[in-house]
């Protein structure tokens, strides 16, 4: 049997090929198989890591620096679980979402390739391999956005151009690091790298590229239309997972290479701007999916707020847990919003009145996941923000505390915009809505998971604490 770390990457890729050959809606069978394989592989991988510590797999048997190594520790596992969980839910959701063969035939191979690329980024220890993984993931993501057709074509184009630009900046840094140290393996670079000008330039270019691809203010304008106009399950994985791949790499680079430690406040300031800007725009968004997409811009900002506080372990934990909690909650929100869009034929906020009676399961899912986004106890979002607050207070960074508080208020306000309308009585004569049960319950399951992440936080955090380098 191939090792679990290999299966976690290759199963979705192999099944993407199968889905492409089967074509049409039949692609859902390889999709479900991939979901089972990924979840099982990540579970086995977790067992290995808990038992023996971080896993290193030398692809081709060559070993770094000549070959490419895969490396999985607690931090990688956290992101792998995010990808496995949200990916499996999105897969189940998609089996009921696409009616027609044409959209489904394009969706399944692209989504499974995206999933494989995502896993490849989470497990790689090689900076150039990460670039290829990011490209695989990025092109697949663009293909998914373009599936929306019409307005989504412009969004997909913008997304692709930004993605190419970000990748090139990243590769620029990789080139400089390789020229100086002759290796692409992150742990070897960490051992070799100093803090001279070349390293700073390389890191700055890589981080700029990665943050660009993560839609950080002021380089965020591409995200809301791309995420909002993509088809339902694609929106969920784009917002919950795809932006996390670049964020994960940024976090890894920052903790491994010391070159930019003094510039953390700059990244933190961008994060603060994102929290406030994303929140304000979510307050004004006219459509539900657009609101949820703006919320992503703000929530990603929280992760950046941790950068000036690194490398304290509370800050690492806070950043990682925020990425995890946001991913699960945001996927639930997007799935719920897409169910509304599907059932009601539109998602203008003004038309959401009475949603609580007309689509109760979906409305509950939206409320629960929204609570996690706001950071209400006992949700996963609460734990993440609590960890970030702790790290900020310990470091005496009061401005971070202030931004987290303001961001929470903004999030509460925009979630209430939706929940308040849902609870209001429906317009007279508004027709009852119907949605396939699988759509409604998948969103609810994710929403429950986002709350549960607060209750069982000790376990993933132990994984992170015990294993962080």
């Amino acid at each position: 049997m191939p090792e679990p770390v290999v299966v976690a990457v290759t199963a979705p890729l192999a099944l993407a090929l199968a889905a492409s050959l089967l074509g049409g809606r039949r692609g859902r069978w390889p999709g479900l198989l991939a979901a089972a394989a990924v979840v099982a592989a990540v579970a086995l991988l977790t067992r290995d890591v808990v038992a023996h510590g971080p896993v290193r797999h030398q692809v081709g048997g060559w070993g770094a620096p000549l070959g490419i190594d895969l490396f999985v520790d607690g931090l990688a596992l956290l992101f792998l679980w995010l990808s496995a969980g949200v990916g499996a839910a999105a897969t189940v959701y998609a089996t009921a979402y696409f009616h027609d063969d044409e959209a489904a035939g394009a969706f399944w191979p692209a989504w499974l390739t995206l999933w494989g690329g995502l896993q490849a980024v989470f497990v790689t220890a090689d900076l150039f391999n990460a670039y290829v993984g990011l490209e695989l993931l990025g092109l697949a993501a663009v293909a998914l956005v373009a599936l929306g057709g019409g307005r989504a074509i412009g969004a997909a184009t913008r997304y692709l151009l930004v993605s190419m630009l970000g990748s090139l900046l990243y590769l620029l840094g990789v080139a400089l690091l390789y020229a100086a140290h002759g290796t692409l393996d992150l742990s070897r670079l960490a051992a070799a790298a100093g803090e001279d000008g070349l390293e700073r330039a390389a890191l700055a270019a890589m981080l700029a590229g990665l943050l660009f691809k993560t839609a950080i203010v002021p380089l965020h304008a591409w995200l809301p239309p791309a995420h909002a106009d993509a088809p339902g399950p694609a929106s969920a994985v784009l917002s919950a997972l795809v932006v996390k791949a670049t964020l994960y790499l940024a976090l890894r680079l920052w903790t491994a290479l010391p070159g930019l430690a003094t510039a953390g406040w700059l990244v933190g300031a961008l994060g603060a701007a994102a929290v406030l800007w994303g929140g304000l725009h979510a307050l004004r968004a006219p459509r539900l999916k657009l609101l949820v997409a703006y919320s992503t811009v703000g929530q990603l900002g929280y992760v950046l707020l941790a950068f000036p506080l690194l490398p304290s372990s509370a800050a690492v934990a806070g950043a990682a847990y925020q990425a995890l909690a946001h991913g699960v909650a945001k996927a639930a929100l997007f799935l719920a919003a897409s169910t509304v869009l599907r059932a009601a034929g539109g998602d203008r906020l003004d038309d959401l009145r009475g949603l609580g009676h007309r689509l109760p399961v979906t409305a509950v899912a939206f409320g629960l996941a929204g609570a996690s986004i706001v950071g209400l106890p006992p949700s996963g979002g609460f734990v993440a923000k609590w960890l970030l607050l702790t790290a900020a207070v310990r470091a005496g960074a009061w401005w971070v505390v202030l931004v987290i508080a303001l961001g929470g208020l903004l999030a509460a306000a925009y979630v209430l915009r939706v929940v308040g309308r849902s609870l209001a009585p429906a317009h007279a004569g508004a027709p009852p809505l119907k949605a396939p049960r699988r759509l409604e319950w998948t969103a609810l399951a994710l929403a429950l998971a986002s709350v549960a992440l607060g209750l069982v936080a000790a376990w993933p955090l132990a994984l992170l604490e015990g294993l962080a380098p």
Partner: protein
Amino acid sequence: MGELEALDLLLGLALVALAWRLLAAPDLFEGIVLFVTFGLLLSFAWVRLGAPDVALAEAAIGAGLTGALLLDARGAMPGASVEGPARLRWPVAVLAAATGGVLVAAVLTLPAAPAGLEGAVAARLEESGVAHPVTAVLLNFRGYDTLLELGVLWLAWLAVAAAGPRPDPRPELRPDLRAEAPTGPVLAALVSQLVPLLILVGAYLLWAGAHAPGGAFQAGAILAGGGVLLRLSGVPLPEAARAAPVVGLGFALFLGVGLAQAAAGRRFLELLPAQAHDLLVLVEVAATVSIAAVLAALFAGRRSVS
């Protein structure tokens, strides 16, 4: 590598000047033609740097196919070559100048001694199954990158060909087809002579890749060039979507070979030295076919857009 000569100075300056000019050219057509010229000069720079494999890939893919795709697209987007006022011109110029300055400074601080992996590659070249270092890195030492890259290529086909709308059945409504003047007998005659030759060159490059510059990507690109030529001279190619079984072949086979090793208790993509050569030849042949099919289909596939 060799000494810096006046030729290199001229070549470098010409590259920068061409880049400047092609971005500033008011006419998009001129810009694209200059881009192809740029690619050819860049291939020359690759040769000067002792990287003939890259030179081949650049000439065939970078300059040739990308240029052909751009020209084709320009023809199909009539009346849209107007360039509006540049946005954020000065802030971005300052930022780009700063980036350039930092990069130049970083390059100048690089130590004179090489820090690369040539030694490591040479030391284990024999175990790799091929005798040409670049091919050994591409297919074996860093074969995992190449596997994912074949995935990227396959995905590009998937996005363009499979997800695209069906072609408009009325050719008179399709400006891209109408714009194509009949090209006459001379081109057809040349193409009929050239395509067999291109197939021969492609096969040679594929074979040579094991011990000399060349390999699957260059060979595939040359074959795809043959496909593009056929298309341009009016020979109908099968529609992009029909290429489905072929385009994924390289990706699927490489993945399968890698997983078979893992299933046999070795690491992913770990080839036994005794079998490495044969397996890599198999992978290369499949990859060449796929690369040629995808690149040609990316070109032919655009017909289904308008």
